[in-house]
């Protein structure tokens, strides 16, 4: 970029990010429930969801509760959550396209692990002993925040499948832009790929976090890169939680819309063609920090 003013400098000038968002604003989110209607074959009622966060897109499919594939896997007192997260080869956008084996890519394996733990905290597992709930997530496009998109997609798919959960699991990431005069405005919510990668020479701070908004508890939080002190971490965590609440609003609205359509079908309004819900809403969340 040969211009005298770099795009990243705009943040200091006009408090806008490189895609025109304000620091506390999440990306445009689309939630589509029942995107994959072929989930009934796995045994039991299934559910699916397609979630777009900006340009990042994730498709989740849930099957279960059903019998375990292997007797040794089953737990005597609760259900087992079988999660797999994969990324399609054309997922990464931009110049970072590397051929990675989705089976052993350690970032995907880590994502699998985190998603599993997060779901174990939300699903009422003790209702289905010795059974298995299978969750499969595919990352279709990756523009940053794919962990959050995967978690959100899995959560909506769970609800679409009708599995009882404690609360709707929502996830969002937050970051810290580093050096700045006005530190309050430097906490960013819902980072995209460019903000996640090395940012002006420093390693960007990226904190994806998942929480149960109505209960107010954090289920998953991850952060690397150096944070100067606890206060910064508190602020970033707070910003991430605000982002999660914004995501929750959108998801909740989408679920209600879907439920109303299904109820309408029962009463005779509407056709199966309208089974697929297209929901589109822009929500702006202002954070305090």
């Amino acid at each position, binding site marked *: 970029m040969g211009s005298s003013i770099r795009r990243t400098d705009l943040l200091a000038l006009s408090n806008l990010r490189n895609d025109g968002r304000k620091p506390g604003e999440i990306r445009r989110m689309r939630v589509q429930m029942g995107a994959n209607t072929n989930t009934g074959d796995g045994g039991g009622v299934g559910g699916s969801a397609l979630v777009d966060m900006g340009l990042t897109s994730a498709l989740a499919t849930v099957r279960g509760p059903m019998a375990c*594939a*292997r007797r*040794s*896997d089953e*737990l005597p*007192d*609760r259900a087992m959550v079988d999660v797999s997260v994969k990324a399609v080869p054309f997922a990464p956008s931009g110049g970072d396209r590397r051929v*990675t*084996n989705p*089976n*052993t*890519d*350690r*970032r995907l*394996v*880590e994502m*699998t*692990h*985190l998603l599993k*733990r*997060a779901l*174990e*905290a939300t699903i*009422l*597992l*003790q209702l289905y002993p010795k059974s298995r709930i299978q969750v499969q997530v595919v990352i279709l496009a990756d523009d940053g925040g794919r962990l959050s998109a995967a978690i959100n997609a899995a959560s909506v798919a769970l609800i679409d499948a009708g599995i009882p959960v404690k609360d709707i699991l929502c996830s969002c990431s937050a970051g810290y832009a580093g050096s700045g005069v006005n530190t309050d405005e430097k906490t960013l919510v819902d980072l995209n790929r460019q903000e996640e990668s090395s940012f002006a020479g420093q*390693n960007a701070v990226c*904190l994806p976090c*998942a929480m*149960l908004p109505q*209960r*107010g*508890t*954090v*289920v*998953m*939080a*991850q*952060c*690397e*890169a*150096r*944070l*100067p*002190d*606890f206060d910064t*971490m*508190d602020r970033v*965590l*707070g910003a991430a*939680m605000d982002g999660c609440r914004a995501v929750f609003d959108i998801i909740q609205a989408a679920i209600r819309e879907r439920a109303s359509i299904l109820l309408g079908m029962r009463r005779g309004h509407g056709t199966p063609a309208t089974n697929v819900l297209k929901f589109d809403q822009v929500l702006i969340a202002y954070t305090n920090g």
Partner: protein
Amino acid sequence: MSSTAYVTIRDDSGLASLSVNERDFLRSCALRGAATTKEEDEDDNPSKVLRLDGRRGHDVRTIKLRLHRWDNGAETTVQWGAGTRVSAVCSAELVPPPSLDRPNEGLLVFEVDLSPMASPGFRLAPAVSTGPGGGGRSSSSSSTNFSNQEQRLLSNRILRCLERIILMGGALDTEALVVEGGKWVWKLTLSITVLDAGGNILDASVLAAVAALRHYRKPQISMTPMASITTETTPTNEYSGPATSAVNMSLDRTTIITLPTLIPSTVKEATPLPLHHSPLSISFGLIPADDAVHSTSSTSVVAALMDPTDREELVASGTLTIAMNIHSEICLLDYGGGCELLPDQLKKCCRAAQGAIQELCQLLERTLQEADEQAQTERLRLLQLQQQASNVSTATMMLPPLPTNNNNNNNNIPFLQQLDDQLDVDTTVDDSQITDYIQTAAEEAYRKQALDYSTGHIATAVREDIPNADRPGSAVTTSSSSASSSSLLAAMLKSVGQNQKNPSIDATTTVTTIDVAPIRGNDNNTMETTTTTTTTITPMDPEDTTAAAANNKPPVTSKSTTLVQPKKVTRKDAIEIDDDDDDEEEEETVMLQSEFDVVVTPKTTTTTTSTSTTQQQSKTDDTMDEEGPDIDDLSMAIKSSKKDKKKKKVHKKK
């Protein structure tokens, strides 16, 4: 690896092995403090919790750290409490940059190895690594095995945490690992092996990895130009048009390939790695009161046990890992979920971790400093030994192993003993030990050579010389055949033979004395140099005749040189032995004379000029008689050959 190859009778470390009683007991222990108070007195909770090994809620187990360093390598073993042991090895090599789009970055490869050695619950699985080839391998058939997936997730988690803490946390900048931009970079390999899994292997792995990185010293590099490639660009390039081809024809590119070589640390001191800071981690095992099984109304009560043991890990629903450095900067926050946490609880855990990590950092610094001092003294000792060894003697001498008893004890003492004793370095004793050792070593080496010579241990070498050596009998023959040999080699051999004996004793010698100025010195050094060319000359010593069995004519030059030195000492002994082997010598000489006419001559002459005149003279007399038939044979051979030649000439004339 298929898991059906063996039968597991009882799995002691899986989730299934946790009995209901044990789980309830552990949970009650953990939640004891948490049950009484809700949110106000949560600070007192950790002290009320009493765990199986007697710790409180926020107590970390005792940690012992052992460091070891060698040329281009460092190894750390962490004993974390009684049940967990992890070892980390750090080494480096020079490679070309791995990817073209990042020519100015080095490589840091992590490798984590969980094996059944660590825990019966682990299956045999290949080590997970971040380097090429490690991450690309699919888990094949064992990937669907649930227990294997747990293990895979665990090893992957450790790998990812290491990667994030050290690489992404900014501890080590890969750009500092560049040697020559675009050509050579360092590839650091950090291998973590879990030796014993007794809970919280993640923290132990991080501590071992960071300690190994800190303790490792990078060797210096010397860039030696190895080859130069000259390439001419010919106008065969498809893309070059006729205009550029004319220019290309005259271009002549020369690329010099430089191959960097590592300099050993005794020559140039190795440098530490450029670590910005040393992050260490601590983990919590989270046990919620509101479990999946035990649903209670108090959903926000969570017990956090710092540094959980393996049994506590089985009970815990979630884990929280925090990594910080000594400046209280948070390097990693990994809350893997599994249970719910209020943000306040999260913050409280972070604060509690801060104190524990500070202690860990101090332990690390202390241990690193002590180990560094120890390694420095070791290196100085090596340098001293080398210097003193070079001053002792010019001959090649094998250096005895260093008297590193103090250090060896450190490695052999069972690990659970006090670490302080192991790391003490007693420098006063070592210096005297060094000098004594060097002197004794020199004496031993000298004695070894002398003894071998005197007792005939090097006789095997000598045997080979015997046929060529002074056979008393061969003296006569050589004289007769000397006339036929006019080669320079014979002359040299004669001259060398002269030098070996005292030039004064020439009475019985029929050797044509050919004075060669440089050789006359009777110096050992010159003798050594000359003996390399003349394999057959060493003989003059009667000792050579002791072992007359082997008649080979091997190149015994090296041994001949050694023989020269102690010759004066053991001559008398050798003489006695000679008498026994005269018969054998005769036979050998017969064979040899026919084969090596030229060479034999000088040897025989040298034998006659040995220092012990009387005895040798008597020998020569004896051999003279014995060699009568030999001489006849030789003369007959010569005559026959002459006849043949005459016949040939006659024939030709005809």
